[in-house]
């Protein structure tokens, strides 16, 4: 029923899009000029990585002699040696933790931490956002409007300066440097996801719930068996947007989880470590190794990622 309605709405638009827009010569020229600018911008985004790639095969002496001689690192390496890549992926490690619990982590380990942290935190954030949004959208209870007002105020009034106090507090309750601690810092259930899901749940008719109630479903049953499955696309959008944020976040894991360096945090430590030996090429290899998996995932799922960011971000 729903699907067919949507079909009907979409079809005329698609048909309209199918028609080629007639353009004047001036407009065509403008579009090609813009195309040129777009190409330049795209190239500017790619060149730094090609430069890193080119120089990651050099020895440190070859690189430093080259740049100070004025070639800007734009020469080909004398030999394409993959030693830096082996070292970057496996060999180079940073020490984390203290006392008897200290351990070495290489880039592979950092990927593990990033995946663990991103996956668990995204799951929790999406779940709590959905739960909070659902309750606030579908139930009336004392204090509801008050909670809503408070949440809105807390979202639109950014207060900075509480970081040192939060840091002390997390230490006092024993959650600093623990995975649950980071979950606690990240997951609120009242953030951007709440607004997104709230709007979504408001749009779902209550009749579905009534039908289920007649079949004897509990409130939990309705939420888990009916409402959540109906919201998978929205949940997926939210998950992708939040996951990108968590994957790239630097400050929170750096402050609250130093013993489990994610790629974003560990890469910074690795580069600082390597800088002491002036081994720029090794540092470049580390950086490229760190971004390749992200690029592969992105290349495979770029359509899904971009369209979900769009869908999720639209109401922002």
């Amino acid at each position, binding site marked *: 029923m729903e699907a067919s309605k949507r079909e009907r709405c979409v079809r005329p638009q698609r048909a309209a899009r199918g028609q080629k827009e007639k353009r004047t010569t001036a407009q065509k020229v403008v579009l090609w000029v813009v195309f040129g600018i777009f190409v330049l911008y795209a190239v500017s985004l790619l060149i730094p990585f090609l430069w890193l790639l080119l120089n990651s095969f050099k020895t440190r*002496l070859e690189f430093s002699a080259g740049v100070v001689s004025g070639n800007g690192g734009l020469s080909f390496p004398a030999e394409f040696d993959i030693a830096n890549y082996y070292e970057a992926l496996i060999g180079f490690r940073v020490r984390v933790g*203290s006392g008897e619990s200290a351990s070495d982590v290489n880039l592979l380990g950092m990927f593990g931490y990033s995946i663990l942290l991103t996956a668990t935190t995204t799951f929790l954030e999406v779940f709590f956002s959905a739960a909070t949004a659902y309750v606030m959208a579908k139930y009336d209870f004392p204090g509801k409007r008050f909670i809503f007002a408070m949440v809105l105020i807390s979202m639109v009034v950014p207060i900075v300066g509480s970081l040192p106090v939060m840091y002390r507090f997390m230490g006092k309750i024993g959650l600093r440097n623990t995975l649950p601690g980071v979950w606690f810092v990240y997951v609120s259930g009242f953030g951007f996801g709440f607004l997104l899901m709230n709007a979504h749940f408001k749009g779902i008719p209550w009749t579905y719930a009534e039908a289920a109630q007649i079949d004897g479903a509990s409130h939990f049953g309705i939420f888990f068996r009916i409402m959540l499955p109906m919201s998978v696309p929205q949940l997926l959008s939210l998950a992708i947007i939040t996951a990108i944020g968590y994957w790239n976040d630097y400050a929170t894991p750096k402050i609250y989880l130093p013993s489990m360096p994610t790629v974003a945090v560990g890469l910074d430590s690795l580069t600082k470590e390597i800088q002491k030996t*002036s081994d720029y090429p090794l540092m470049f290899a580390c950086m490229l190794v760190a971004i390749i998996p992200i690029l592969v995932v992105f290349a495979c799922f770029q359509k899904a990622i971009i369209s979900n960011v769009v869908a999720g971000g639209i109401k922002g």
Partner: protein
Amino acid sequence: MKLSKLGACVLAGAMLLPLFAGCAGTWTGGELGNDVDLGQNDTSNRSGWVLRERPSADAFADKDLYITYFNGGYGGAWLEEMASTFEEDYPGVQVHLNPTNDVNTTLEVELEESPYDIYISQDIAWEYLGARGLLADLTAELYDSVIYTDTENDNTGIRFRDLLVPASLACSSYQGKYYKVAQIQGAGGIIYNKTMFDQYGWQIPATYEQLQELCETIVSAGKVPFLVAGSEGYLWDSLVHDWWIQIAGEEEFSRLYAGKDKDCWNPAVYPYHKQAYQYWYDLFVKNKDRYLYPGFEGLDNLMANSAFLNGLAAMMPATAWAVNELGKDMIEEVGIDVGLIPTPYVKEAKKDENGNFIRVCYDVAGRDSIVVAERGNKDLAIEFLKWMSETEHTLIFPKNVSGTLMGFKYETETLLAENSPYCKFTWDRDMFKLLGEASFRSTGYSTSYLFIDKKVSDYPLGNKYLDCFTNYGKPSELTVNKIFDDAWNEVNGHWDSWQIV
């Protein structure tokens, strides 16, 4: 909207509650008690010294010693050698080393929860951590403990404190207690490309004027005299602070660090720092285009080091860790030798009774700390530090780290002996000679809370070196007069409100 306002009021009310609940007490006055015994027994003649009887490993319930250290600057080879030698000397003990590039971020948490036993790093807030009871008070158990007995001098006990150079002793106590051991002693100056100097026949300058002449000579040879990373402005302290001490003398220089007299920031009353700064300004800022590598402002430290190694400039201002930062293996790979030029004397420099200039040095590296965690394996950690202070073990450091010594007293003859294992580059020999000659060395450390709380520093308005370069010749030009007048206005205007005890 009404509800939003109500919500805001309730929230504001809830948030202000703690204010009225008295979450913090009212102000308690009192003294900080900074005074500490800096007295030392005579250590000039070691011939009759007999080493203490060391305890065996069985004396320690916990035989594992965990040490974390900042591995920038001096690397880790010295500590690895110390650890293995310590294990040999104390069979049954195991030393675990943890190199890291960031000791301080998690330090307080670690000290509270599961600390390493010893921390070695720069910038440790040891005064605060010590006062909080997180660092071991080393006064009785380490500083007053006897390491040697001088059998030729009435069996006088040579205590740990006697083995340290005065500057290292002076920068290790807070509120009457010793909390740290100064990791190293070093000196600043100018690092030079000796291979290049030899090739062109350039002479080492002893005075400011000679340095100026040298720069001209280098320029006329088509080379660039100096290079420095724009981002590392503090390196100029090596020269400016040295000139300041040369002009002010030990007593006047130290007066500022006592933090008791605001006039020390008043250039009309205390002109020494300003004079030194002016010397630097006249030589380097005014001749920036000729004496400094073009574009040095946009270089980071690594690129600057690469450029120096590749012969793009003849000299760099340097601290004690310069050679280690350049990389011993890199210097060898490139195939050059480097040396140290002690900061040349300015004409107002103090002279001794024979009319010779008095050699002094400023050493920012001397502030690096070794501290012991109160909740760690304190006994074994302190034993390790005692063992470290024994003459033969103090030499492990310069064997591994070019031209740098620990905070202990060394015999210069040993270091400079022929085929000395401590002198790899000319730099090492130059540095040891300089440290041996210096009659006064200061780390610029102050036990005054005004300094610890960062209300004042030896340049109250921040390091302005780079600004001087980038604004020179422009309408916004920063003059020495302006820098010091502004600094004095800042100190004079706030002095009373800064007083906390």
